[in-house]
């Protein structure tokens, strides 16, 4: 997808993939779609949990060869 901003958070123990996503969401405009790459299986769960609380949208959530890829659209 052309307009997806990739956040490569593989191997990120601190701050970690979710915090990297929050950083991206804070600084980019509403409507931006992000794709977080994570080597931590927990991301497939904790990113959607925060996205629901923060009022954004999960576009896709998949695993590709041990890398978890979660797409999130900033809605507000």
């Amino acid at each position, binding site marked *: 997808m052309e307009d997806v901003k990739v*956040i*490569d*958070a*593989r*191997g*990120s*123990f*601190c*701050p*970690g*993939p*979710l*915090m*990297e996503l*929050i*950083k991206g969401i*804070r*600084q*980019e405009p509403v409507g931006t779609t992000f794709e977080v790459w994570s080597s931590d299986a*927990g991301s497939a769960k*904790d990113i959607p*949990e*925060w996205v629901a*609380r*923060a009022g954004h949208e999960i576009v896709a959530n998949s695993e590709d060869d041990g890398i978890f890829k979660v797409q999130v659209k900033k809605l507000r």
Partner: protein
Amino acid sequence: MKKIVILGGGVGGTIVANQVARQMGKELRNHELEITVISDSVNHVYQPMFLYVAFDQVVPEEAQKPEREILDRHVKLHIGSADRVDRDAKAVIMEDGTKITYDYLVIATGSRPAPEAIDGLEQGGYIFYTEEGALKLREALHNFQGGRIVVTVGVPHKCPVAPLEFTFMVQEWAKARGLGDKTEVVYTYPIGRLHSLEPVANWATPVFEERGIESHIFFNPETVDASNKTITSLEGETLNYDLLVAIPPHTGQAVIGRSGLGDAGNWIATDRHSLRMQGTEDIFVLGDATNLPISKAGSTAHFEADVVASNLVNLLRGGLGSIRYDGKVFCFIETGLKNATYIQFDYTHPPKPQEPTEMIHMFKLAYNRMYWLTPAGVL
């Protein structure tokens, strides 16, 4: 003559300058190599001391030394503010118009706390990540007579263990002043556990319960109402406070934005192993200035600086500059006023926190005094 220009006189930039100078002293003396550090401050500041300044354990003068005294005498120091990097001219353009050309540029400009990013925070809260902020908080703590202290954490932020350290320390500090019964300590964190590092969060959770520290997870501070003394998260939760201490979101430096080198937050897209700015061969980036998904911490800058310095020496001697950074980070964690632990990890090895001990705390206090050997390139 080859020219290395280092933009930023913090820990990362200073280590690179001194390590290259030590290994290439002959070339520097023969004027085959010139190293210039650009800094907007005559003083080198050891920022972790601000945590202790807030508790009046040290004063700001103990956290700084003239950068000139730390740098190898063959390294040039240019004090002033950089306006922008001109990649076409391979030069840093200073605000006064001075043009400093480079063959290799090292960007080590760090980050800055941006309390203005949270509406009302500057009016309603305190920070301890700057000298000015730590002094104001010192005054507020000195006058504190008990109440509800809320520690809140924005994203991104540097020194990721400092929020936990402050929380533990402020509670012990209140008890030591006889205010324990009249003081509540509340901690908020942006994600679904007490710390980004899972082992640290697992260790901290029972400690919070044992010490009676209230916690609110999934809390990203969005607005502060200074009149009513409340803070509200973007997730919609509102907390009351008597004293608000915030670790505000950070941004990269404005010079990165003016140079067109960064993203919307002024962070520079950097290769995680080579530490070159993506798409370039002649620009290295280290420390907080990168967009890498690793801790914004002095130790990160330190270990990255070792790699950048080695690659610069290698390149200047005809090598390929292919030494790789493995993501190494090391942090002490103060767990109160008397004990501490530490963590170490890299891109492929998760951290394993050790049991806190008084010895590690003593070593941390000793390191605070020995720090000056680090930018000197010795430790």
